C-alpha cells in the first residue's frame, strides 16, 4: 500500500507525463515471462566448467598442495595454483573510474602460503563437465598447518594478538572532533552510555555469482558476469597483466546485488582460465560457494555516550566504533568512514567526538552491504535515542523532535546538506501510520518502535565520481538510451528510460535501453552507493535535454515561434496553448535527419568533487547529499519463549521525486524485509572463523509468513540533487528498520537486548537477567 505526500509548495508549475507514474518497468515483461537471460543462461560451444577449491580452516600455513592427480584426470583442461600465477594479486579497493589514488589493498588471487580466512581459494579447476571439475577437486591433495588466528576484534587489538597481516591488526581509523565535547558533557543534566552490537549479514541475493568468459579474435578477454560493477575490467586487466582495453565486461540483468556483487567475485578466475585454456569457461557458484565467496556486512561494536539536558536537548556525544574487517581490506576503510559521518544520525550535535576503527581478524572479510556502515550507526544511535527518552521519561518522538537536524543546518562534518531535511514529517507520518495499538494478551506483549535515519546517496566526493549516458532518437521517433549502468533488479535502466522519454515527449513503450557493456555503452560507474539514479539519471536527463534543445529549435523554426514555446508530449511536438500548431515527432525527426541535425547526445554528469575530510577534525563534505526518513513498527513478544512477531511495519521516506513510485515501493518493501531479518533472525555464525551457518537452512531470512504488510508512505520534497529533484531510496529503505524493531521489542518487554539479531533466546536471557537483578 502506498500513498504519496507532496509539499504543496513544490507542486506548482510541475507537470510530468511519464515521470512519477507507476509505469510497468521496461524490464518487467521479460522477467515475468522468463525470457530475460541472466548471466548464468549464457553458454558457448566448446565451453569448460570451472570449480574453485577452498581452504577449510581459517588460519593456516599451506604446507603442501598437490594437483597432479587432478591434472591427470581425463576431462580436466587446466588446474591453476598460486605457483602458476607468479605474484599476481587483485585489488580489493573501491573501483576508481576517475583516476583517483587507490588504497593499497591487493590480495593474492590464490593462496600461496598463508590462509587467512575460511574459504580462501587454493586452486582453480576447468574441466569438460561440472562433474569432472568436482571430481578433480576431490583429487587435489593439500595440507594446512593451523596457525593461531584471531576471531574477535577486541582480542585482535590486544598486544601480542596474532597478526592477520601487516604490522598490527588496525586496518583503518577515522575521527571527528567537533565543538567542545567536555564542555558539552559539563552542561548535561544526564549522561547516558550504552554499547550496541550488530552482526554479520549475508546479501543472500537470489542469483549466486556466475559468469562466462572467452577470448575473442582481437585477444580481448570478454566476461559475461552478474555484477554491480562492469568497470572492474580495469583491476581484472591489471591482475592478468594485459592492457585495460583488452578486457571487456558485459553485464546482464542481475538477480540482486545489495553490495555483494560490488567487489570482484568470479571475474578474475574466469579471465585467468579463459586466457590459459583459450576456451570459453563458465563458473557458477553454488549457494554454499556464495556464502564463502563474497564479503559480508561488518559487525560493529558501537559505544554511545550522550549528554542531554532535562528537556532532552543533546549537549555532547562521544562515539566509539569498532568494525570487524575480516581477513582482507576490501572496502572497510570506506565503510567506517560512512559510519563515522553518520554517527549522530539526523540530529544536530554541535559537540561531537567520533572514533571509528576497522580491525583485521581471521573471520570472513567484510565489505559493501546496503547501508554501508551508516546503517550500523543507525542501529546504535536510534536505540540510544530510545534509551535517553526512557531515562528522561520523555516521549520518544518528542525527544527526537527536540534534536532533529533541520534544513540548512550543518551535519556531523560541518557540511550543510543542499536538500530539504524532512525527517520530522517522515517520523510523524510513520508513527501515525501504526494506527490503533494492538493490545497485549497474557504472555504476548505488544510494543512500538520508531527509528529515523540519515543516509547518503552518491559516492564519496573525493572519488570525483562521473557518469555518462547517450540518448538518441531514431527516424521513426523511437528512442534509444545507452549507458553502462548495471541494473541489479531495482529498475535502474527503466528509470533512465522514463527520464529520457519524459524529456523527449514520447511514451515508455517507445524506448529501448542498452546497458552494462564496458566496451560499447558509455561508462556510467557503479550501481552502488544509491548512486545509479542520482548519477546516471542526471546524465540521461542532460543527454535527453541536449537532444531536445536541437529538436525544439528546429520545430520552432517550422512553427515560426521561439524554442521555449515548444512542448513535446505523447509523441507529438506542439506550440504551447496553440493546439492547431502540432506535428508528429516522427515528422520532425525526419526533417532533422534530412538536414543533418544531430539526433543523439552523449552527456557526462559530474558529482561535486571534493577532498578528503580533514584527518584531525573529520570536517568537510563527505557526500553530495543525504536522504532522510523514518520507519515505525509494532511487534508482539512472547515473554515465555522470546519469539518476536512484527505486526505492523510502516515506512515514510522523502525520496525527493519519485521517478517510478512502484519501483520505489519495491525498494521499501525489500528494505523492510532485509532489515527485519537483520534485526531478528539472520545470523552468520563463525567458529574459529569457520562458517557454521553455510546455507539457507541455517541462515534464516524472513519468509512471506514472517512479514507483515508493509505500508509505504512516500514524501516528495523535490529538493534532491538527482534528476527532477530525486534523492535515492535503495539503501535508505533498509537503514532504520532494525533499530525500529529493536525499540519496539524493548518497548514491549521493558528491557533492551543490546545485541542483534534479537533472537528468542536473547529475549529470554534479557528478561531472566532483569528478573534476577
Amino acid at each position, binding site marked *: 500500500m502506498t500513498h504519496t505526500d507532496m509539499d504543496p509548495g513544490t507542486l506548482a508549475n510541475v507537470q510530468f507525463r511519464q515521470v512519477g507514474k507507476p509505469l510497468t518497468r521496461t524490464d518487467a515483461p521479460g522477467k515475468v515471462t522468463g525470457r530475460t537471460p541472466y548471466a548464468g543462461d549464457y553458454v558457448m560451444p566448446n565451453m569448460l566448467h570451472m570449480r574453485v577449491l577452498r581452504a577449510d580452516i581459517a588460519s593456516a600455513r599451506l604446507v603442501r598442495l598437490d594437483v597432479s592427480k587432478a591434472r591427470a584426470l581425463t576431462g580436466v583442461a587446466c588446474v591453476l595454483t598460486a605457483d602458476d600465477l607468479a605474484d599476481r594479486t587483485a585489488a580489493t579497493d573501491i573501483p576508481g573510474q576517475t583516476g583517483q589514488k587507490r588504497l593499497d589493498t591487493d590480495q593474492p588471487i590464490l593462496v600461496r602460503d598463508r590462509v587467512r580466512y575460511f574459504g580462501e581459494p587454493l586452486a582453480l579447476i576447468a574441466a569438460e563437465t561440472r*562433474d569432472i571439475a568436482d571430481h578433480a577437486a576431490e583429487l587435489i591433495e593439500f595440507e594446512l598447518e593451523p596457525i593461531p588466528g584471531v576471531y574477535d576484534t577486541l582480542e585482535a587489538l590486544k598486544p601480542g594478538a596474532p597478526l592477520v597481516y601487516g604490522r598490527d591488526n588496525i586496518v583503518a581509523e577515522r575521527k571527528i572532533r567537533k565543538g567542545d565535547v567536555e564542555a558539552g558533557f559539563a552542561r548535561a543534566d544526564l549522561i547516558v552510555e550504552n554499547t550496541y552490537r550488530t552482526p554479520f549479514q549475508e546479501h543472500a541475493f537470489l542469483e549466486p555469482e556466475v559468469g562466462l568468459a572467452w577470448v575473442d579474435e582481437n585477444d580481448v578477454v570478454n566476461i559475461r558476469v552478474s555484477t554491480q560493477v562492469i568497470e572492474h575490467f580495469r583491476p581484472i586487466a591489471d591482475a592478468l597483466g594485459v592492457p585495460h582495453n583488452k578486457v571487456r565486461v558485459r553485464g546482464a540483468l542481475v538477480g540482486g546485488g545489495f553490495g555483494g556483487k560490488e567487489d570482484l567475485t568470479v571475474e578474475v578466475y574466469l579471465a585467468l582460465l579463459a586466457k590459459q585454456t583459450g576456451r570459453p569457461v563458465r563458473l557458477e557458484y553454488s549457494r554454499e560457494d556464495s556464502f564463502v565467496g563474497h564479503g559480508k556486512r561488518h559487525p560493529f561494536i558501537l559505544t554511545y555516550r550522550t549528554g542531554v539536558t532535562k528537556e532532552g536537548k543533546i549537549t555532547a556525544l562521544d562515539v566509539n566504533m569498532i568494525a570487524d574487517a575480516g581477513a582482507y581490506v576490501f572496502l572497510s576503510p570506506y565503510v567506517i568512514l560512512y559510519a563515522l559521518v553518520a554517527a549522530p544520525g539526523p540530529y544536530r550535535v554541535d559537540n561531537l567526538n567520533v572514533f571509528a576503527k576497522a580491525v583485521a581478524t581471521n573471520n570472513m572479510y567484510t565489505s559493501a552491504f546496503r547501508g554501508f556502515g551508516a546503517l550500523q550507526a543507525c542501529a546504535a544511535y536510534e536505540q540510544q535515542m530510545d534509551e535517553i527518552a526512557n531515562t528522561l521519561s520523555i516521549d520518544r518522538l518528542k525527544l527526537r523532535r527536540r534534536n532533529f537536524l533541520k534544513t540548512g543546518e550543518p551535519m556531523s562534518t560541518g557540511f550543510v546538506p543542499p536538500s530539504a531535511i524532512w525527517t520530522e514529517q517522515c517520523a510523524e507520518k510513520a508513527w501515525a501510520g501504526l494506527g490503533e495499538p494492538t493490545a497485549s494478551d497474557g504472555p504476548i506483549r505488544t510494543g512500538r518502535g520508531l527509528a529515523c535515519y540519515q543516509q547518503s546517496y552518491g559516492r564519496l566526493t573525493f572519488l570525483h565520481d562521473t557518469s555518462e549516458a547517450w540518448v538518441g532518437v531514431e527516424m521513426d521517433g523511437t528512442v534509444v538510451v545507452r549507458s553502462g549502468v548495471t541494473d541489479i533488479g531495482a529498475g535502474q535502466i527503466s528509470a533512465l528510460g522514463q527520464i529520457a522519454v519524459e524529456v523527449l515527449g514520447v511514451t515508455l513503450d517507445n524506448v529501448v535501453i542498452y546497458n552494462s557493456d564496458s566496451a560499447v555503452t558509455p561508462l556510467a560507474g557503479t550501481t552502488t552507493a544509491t548512486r545509479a539514479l542520482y548519477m546516471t539519471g542526471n546524465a540521461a536527463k542532460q543527454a535527453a535535454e541536449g537532444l531536445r534543445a536541437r529538436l525544439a529549435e528546429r520545430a520552432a523554426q517550422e512553427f515560426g515561434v521561439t524554442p521555449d514555446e515548444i512542448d513535446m508530449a505523447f509523441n507529438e511536438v506542439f506550440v504551447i496553448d496553440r493546439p492547431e500548431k502540432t506535428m508528429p515527432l516522427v515528422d520532425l525527426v525526419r526533417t532533422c535527419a534530412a538536414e543533418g541535425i544531430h539526433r543523439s547526445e552523449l552527456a557526462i554528469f559530474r558529482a561535486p568533487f571534493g577532498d578528503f575530510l580533514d584527518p584531525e577534525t573529520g570536517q568537510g563534505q563527505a557526500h553530495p547529499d543525504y536522504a532522510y526518513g523514518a520507519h515505525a513498527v509494532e511487534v508482539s513478544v512472547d515473554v*515465555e*519463549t522470546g519469539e518476536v512477531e512484527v505486526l505492523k511495519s510502516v515506512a515514510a521516506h522523502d525520496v525527493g521525486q519519485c521517478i517510478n513510485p512502484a519501483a520505489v515501493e519495491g525498494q521499501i518493501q525489500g528494505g523492510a524485509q532485509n532489515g527485519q531479518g537483520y534485526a531478528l533472525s539472520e*545470523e552468520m555464525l563463525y567458529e574459529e572463523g569457520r562458517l557454521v551457518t553455510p546455507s539457507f537452512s541455517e541462515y534464516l531470512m524472513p*519468509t512471506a509468513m514472517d512479514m507483515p504488510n508493509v505500508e509505504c508512505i512516500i514524501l516528495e520534497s523535490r529538493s534532491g540533487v538527482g534528476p527532477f529533484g530525486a534523492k535515492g531510496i535503495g539503501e535508505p529503505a533498509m537503514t532504520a528498520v532494525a533499530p525500529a524493531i529493536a525499540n519496539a521489542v524493548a518497548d514491549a518487554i521493558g528491557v533492551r537486548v543490546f545485541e542483534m539479531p534479537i533472537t*528468542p533466546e536473547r529475549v529470554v536471557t534479557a528478561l531472566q537477567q532483569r528478573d534476577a537483578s
Partner: protein
Amino acid sequence: MYAPFELDIPTTLDGALAALANGGGETVLPIAGGTNLIVDIRAKRERPDRMVGLGEVDELLGMEFGPERISIGGRTTVSDLLRSPEIAHEAPSLIEAARLFGGLMVRNTGTVAGNIASGSPAADLVPPLLTLDAELTLASASATRTLALDDYYLGYKQDARRPDELITRISWPRLPENSANTFYKLARRKGDAITVTGVAVTLSVADGTCSRARIALASVAPVVRRVKEAEAVLEGQALTPALIDEAAEAAASTCTPIDDIRASAGYRRHTVEALTRRLVTQAWDRLA
C-alpha cells in the same frame, strides 16, 4: 555433485517390497518425496547404490476414517493432510504441524512415512502422532507387522525398521469425547524453519479429571519422545496450576537437549517447561 545410483520405480507395493528385499549386499533405500534423502545424498551423508522410488505405488496412498480408527497411507503428503477436513477435525495437532511445515514445495512432496523414517529429532509430524498413540504398519516381502510409534525409535537416527521394510500405513484411535489435541512449533522464524522446541499435547477429560494425558517433545532429545514422567503427573487428576507446573517441570527435567546453532540446551529446557505449561493449561481450561 551426486554419486551415481540405480533407481527402481515399481508400480505395486509387492514390486517395491521385492526390490527392497533383493539388496544383495548393496545399500538400497526407499525414496518417497526425497525432501530428506536428496539433501542427504547431496551432502554425502547417504550414498545409496540403489533407490526404490515409491512415487508410483498407489497402495501407499489413501486415508480411511473408520468408526474406531483413522488410518493414512505412508505416502500421504503434508499437503494431503492440510487438504483433509476430517484430519482437521480429528487431529488438529497434525494440521498445526503441517501448516508450519517447510514451504509449499516441500509440503507438496514430503510424506508422513518419510518424516517418521527420517528419524530426525526435529520431525514435526512425530510429536502429534505420538500423542495420538499412533501405530505403524511395517511390511516386507515376507511379513507384515504393526508397531507402536512409541516403540519405533531406538536412538539417534536409529529405528526398529529393518532395511527391507516399508512403513505402509500409520493409524491411530479416534480421540475420546472431550479431548484437546495441540502442537506448538517454536522455531527461529515462522516459515520454513527447523524446530527449536516442539511440544504436542493431547488431553482427555472425563468426570472432571484428566483421563488421559500425552505429551511429546521434538528437538530436545536424540529422538522425538513422549515424556511419560510428565503425563503421569496429570493422569487421573483434576488439574490445578500446581499440578500443571509439576508436569511442566517434569517435562523440562527429563528432556536431554543439546546446544546447537539454533539454541542452547538451557533455552530449550526453559521453553519445554513454558510451552508444556501453556498447552496443558489451555487444553484443561477448554475441557474442564
